[in-house]
């Protein structure tokens, strides 16, 4: 057996460790399949939504750090001698620390971690100045935007479907094609 194949093979442990990715892939394929195979427009939109949701999951998965908590800096975690800073300053500082963590998180380490870069993040977080492990909030934030985009898309799609139904009296693409060909 060649080396490549050995590399490709994965243990049950690894398989289980990547369970969230399997879910993502499953959802993605399901959604995609519905979009291309269903001729009912509503079902197409549902498929599209599932498809998009899988991407949301993908992002959130990559942001999650094992044993990490929400990235909120509590006062007792910040080892500052000077407590005279007001709250806003502290928050500012905290975010700076967090950003530094991300910046330190060099790509070399990242790639050595293979397809599970979150592990690298975790290692970093542990050796960092703080003892608390945070999850990466950025992907979740990005997904907020993506969800909004998704909702807008769905709303627009539904609005279009309403108009199509008004004009054609059906939302089955096959029937519409026949109607168009006749006219």
């Amino acid at each position: 057996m060649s080396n490549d194949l050995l590399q490709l093979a994965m243990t049950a442990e690894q398989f289980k460790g990547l369970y969230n990715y399997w879910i993502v892939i499953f959802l993605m394929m399901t959604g995609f399949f519905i979009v291309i195979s269903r001729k009912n427009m509503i079902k197409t939109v549902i498929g599209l939504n599932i498809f998009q949701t899988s991407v949301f999951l993908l992002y959130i998965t990559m942001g999650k750090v094992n044993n990490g908590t929400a990235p909120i800096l509590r006062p007792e975690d910040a080892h500052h001698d000077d407590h005279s800073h007001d709250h806003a300053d502290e928050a500012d500082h905290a975010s700076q620390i967090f950003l530094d963590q991300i910046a330190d998180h060099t790509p070399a380490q990242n790639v050595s971690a293979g397809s599970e870069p979150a592990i690298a993040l975790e290692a970093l977080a542990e050796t960092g100045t703080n003892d608390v492990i945070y999850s990466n909030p950025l992907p979740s934030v990005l997904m907020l935007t993506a969800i909004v985009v998704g909702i807008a898309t769905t709303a627009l799609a539904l609005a279009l479907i309403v108009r199509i139904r008004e004009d054609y009296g059906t939302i089955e693409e096959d029937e519409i094609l026949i109607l168009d060909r006749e006219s």
Partner: protein
Amino acid sequence: MIEHHLPILLIAIPLMAAPCCVLIHSRRLTQLLALLVCWLCFGISVWLMTKVMHEGAVTYNLGGWEAPYGIVYVVDYLSAFVMLFVSALAAIVLTYSPTSVQAEIPESKQYLFYATYLLCLTGLLGICITGDLFNVFVFLEISSLSTYALISLGRTRRAPLAAFQYLIMGTIGATFILIGIGLLYQMTGTLNMADMAEQLEAVRAVDGETWAGSRTMLVAFAFMTVGLSIKMAVFPLHSWLPNAYTYAPSVVTCFIAATATKVSVYVFIRVVYEIFTPTFAFNILPLDSALMAFSLIGIFVASLAAIYQTNIKRLLAYSSIAQIGYMLLGISMANTAGLTAGIVHMFNHALIKGGLFMVVGCLILRLGSAKLEDLRGAGKTMPWTSFAWVLGGLGLIGVPLTAGFVSKWLLLTAAIDSQHWWVATLMLLSSLLALVYVWRVVETLYFAEPSERAAAAKEAPPLMLVTTYLVVGASIVFGIWTEFSAGVAFETAQHLLGVTQ
């Protein structure tokens, strides 16, 4: 002070103006506001272009957050160039629009038209200006969503259907891009394009040859390429385009045909050349051969399809698919000459196709139809409009002294210089197909007995003619004076390739 903030104003002004349009509600006022905003955007783009030409790239940190943490807006040669012609065409098309809009869009919906138009412009400009990859996705969706809405404003019942089909395809494309962005983020931990490129470069420096083996990179690249190909309407992912262009209101077709696909090409250039680097895309992966093959097949298939169309809007839509092929052909050569040709063709084709669709708008206004049979003999009653078609058509064919020739010549010399003999030959042969479909319309306009509609028609209104001739004239001016277009494209190409050397 305000000068410093111009990059953000370019996006903020149309973005803010769009809801204002909805609030104002009055047709005349929204029209004025939109017009003002578009020309303002054009002014800012011109200013940014000159600044870039004199002082080099302009960066703007949003909210004062520095890259790579904050979102930056970067105006370099490429983005300034694309923004320039996008905003120019947006402004000219909007100036051209009132009569056509009045004829094709119900009065109660016109304020929405103007609002969506501005949103679409925002999205397109945003894609160009931002230096943040996720931002690209967001702006891409802003422009796409407004495009879907604009298309659905068409008069026939097929318009919402075309919009829906485009929406499905477009959203799949956008989601693919989003997946790609996510995977890239996973690899690099950054969303800033320049930073991302640096990080990947560093990885390559460490890992050397094995770098290409990174499966995440490959998957990200695949998703991005396919997603963008849908947005660019690359054959065989072009199926949304003909219907969308055909059934949209004429003004909308003018605008999106001239700008939307080009902006996607812009993103493609950015992603391939700046983030993944040509070495990865062309040397390690065979994107160049794949792209070349698909472009050439696309050019031939779409041009042949265009020949058999009986609706000139559809004819031009297929021609657009073919022309995208020429742009990608240049881009896929991965050398300065080819890239220059590709970028110049983005600009030239925007002018030519914009102009031609504007001609079609005039014809539809007067004849009420875009069918070839109704166009018969319109050359007699609408001489100016018809002549504009001839001029624009010559550009599409690539006759000397038109902009189309400049792109064709650059592409030809680039192909021959890099020993792509087959590409050169096939490209030239394919441009003859353009001759056939353009001339079919010319003959219909001039040599046929006038149809009933054509005989009753009168010349298009002066404002529409003037603006049409402005664009068509520009396509001729930039066919003779190429110092600006080819010069900027050359600078850009050198910059894009220089980064990776």
